[in-house]
């Protein structure tokens, strides 16, 4: 038994060189590692049913769904669902709302955590640093429902803090949540408030990996703090920054449904209706399964394409990519 274990380990170690032995050893290795498959089997079953299962259901996008016939039995109608979506009067506005909102979120939300991490990193081990960290992480744990509830409270025209301040300056109170022109700002800024601390963690982790010798050497050379940030810290976290940026671009179209839906009302609908909320309404509220599957598929295909393109560009420019 012990000898066999040794053998399989050496084969692993040398790999490539003992090709002939490896063929017969795959069966052996499978037998020897069967317990690992017990560990992973439930997870594999889960992924097949609940992740790949719905992908199988994506064929609905090309079908006229008939509840009696089921997914398989429904009639193929080619690209009719897509054509209907592209021709619908909402198409342009939905696409515009989704893209503007998520690009706005990306531009405003992406750099702030990086800056926060760099500033925090300058306060090594102080109590103040701990305090800022604990406080800025906290909103991340607040639910979207409570966050939107808080927005309702703070922005309320009767007694809300923001309108109190506006009234101090002698202005009329504003019904912020009922105005389409404010929707995007409120959405993005509240997102920054909620997530800047949490999103800074990953950069703090990267910064803690910067070799102290580099800073030491820079101090010896008389580099100021700002210079050390620009020439030591920033280059060190650049790979992390690029990866996060690529991932963010890859999810530009998959804006969260929940927050937009909760913030939505009949007065701000013209800027708050995004593809995700539209899919929900058309699909689950109006039971147009085929059509809204098509809209959802359109969304994910754009996402995937964007991710692949941005990843490629990033690899070309900085040699950093997700795969």
């Amino acid at each position, binding site marked *: 038994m012990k000898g066999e274990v040794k053998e399989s380990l050496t084969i692993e170690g040398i790999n490539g060189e003992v090709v002939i032995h490896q063929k017969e050893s795959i069966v052996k290795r499978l037998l020897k590692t069967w317990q690992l498959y017990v560990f992973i089997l439930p*997870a594999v079953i889960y992924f097949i049913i609940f992740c790949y299962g719905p992908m199988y*259901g994506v064929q609905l996008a090309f079908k006229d769904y008939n509840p009696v016939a089921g997914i398989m039995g429904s009639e193929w109608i080619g690209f009719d669902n897509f054509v209907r979506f592209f021709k619908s009067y909402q198409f342009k506005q939905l696409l515009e709302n989704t893209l503007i909102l998520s690009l706005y979120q990306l531009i405003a939300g992406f750099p702030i955590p990086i800056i926060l991490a760099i500033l925090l990193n300058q306060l090594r081990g102080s109590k103040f640093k701990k305090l800022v960290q604990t406080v800025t992480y906290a909103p991340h744990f607040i639910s979207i429902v409570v966050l939107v509830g808080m927005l309702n409270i703070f922005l309320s025209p009767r007694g809300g803090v923001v309108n109190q301040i506006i009234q101090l300056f002698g202005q009329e109170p504003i019904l912020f949540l009922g105005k389409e022109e404010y929707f995007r700002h409120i959405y993005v800024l509240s997102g920054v408030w909620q997530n800047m601390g949490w999103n800074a963690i990953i950069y703090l982790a990267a910064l803690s990996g910067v070799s102290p010798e580099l800073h030491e050497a820079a101090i010896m050379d008389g580099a100021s703090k700002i210079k050390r940030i620009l020439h030591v810290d920033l280059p060190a976290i650049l790979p992390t920054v690029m990866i996060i940026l690529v991932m963010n671009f890859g999810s530009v179209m998959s804006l969260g449904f929940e927050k937009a839906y909760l913030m939505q009302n009949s007065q701000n609908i013209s800027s708050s209706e995004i593809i995700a909320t539209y899919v929900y309404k058309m699909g689950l509220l109006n039971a147009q399964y085929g059509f809204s599957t098509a809209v959802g598929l359109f969304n994910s295909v754009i996402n995937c394409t964007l991710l692949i393109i941005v990843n490629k560009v990033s690899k070309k420019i900085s040699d950093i990519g997700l795969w």
Partner: protein
Amino acid sequence: MRALISSDFRRQSKGDKLFDIMNYIILSVILLVVLYPLIFIVVASVSEPDAVARGEVWLLPVGLNIDGYKEVLKNTDIWQGYANTIKYTVTGTLLNVCLTIPAAYALSRKELVGRNLLMGMITFTMFFGGGLIPTYLLVSGLHLNNTMWALIIPGAISVYNLIISRSYFVSNIPEELFEAGQMDGCSYFKFFFSVVLPLAKPILGVIVLMYAVGHWNSYFNALIYLRDRQLYPLQVILREILIQQEASMSMGGSAASVMEQQRIADMLKYGVIIVSTLPILCVYPFIQKYFVKGMMIGSVKG
């Protein structure tokens, strides 16, 4: 290094001192901006509701009043929702962890035949999925609709948590330990339970928190899958109280009773935010020290 930096602190250049001052100012502003809304909710929850509505409450409670909390206690919907949420969070998190940790460990072993294929298959689901409708039809087809399992099973594994757990095992379970175990004739099962799990406490802390917070805060699945009111989790009830309340308020009644309803609803809001959010805000600082560690592992090796 530390000595060097602190001695450097005393004989800093003017520019560096200015930088430090600016740094403290900026971070203090950020601190206040994040903290103030949280403090305001706490203060408003114990203040006189009329004073809050008139905008007289800024930083300190005006006229101590805990009627809001009394309203919360009286509201059976909230307690039903609370009990449901605890049930879903505990069951769900247990299932999440039981599926994620063993799978992550198996994926961390080099000798797992087909490891790359499995990883590829799993990672792919991060970037592409069937979407809302096919998932909904699947869950309905399995007759999970209107049961707690509809909230728990479809999201049983988060790929992100699986990947950071796997990376943790790759970098924190020394290969020598495994070889020694093999020498002693330790099976994978035994090795997992007696060596891996005790070493996995930090990553367990992080993923338990992330999963639990996810369950605690989720409302969308409940919105689409649950029909029976007595199954509603806290967040769905919160949505009614915090967001939809304005709409239902105008449903008739005399002006005076509408005013009174409004007053009660306002009191309820602050109390219910505190009662629903406090458990998490109290727990997370204890696990906070693991966040950076967990993220670091995830980002380096993920």
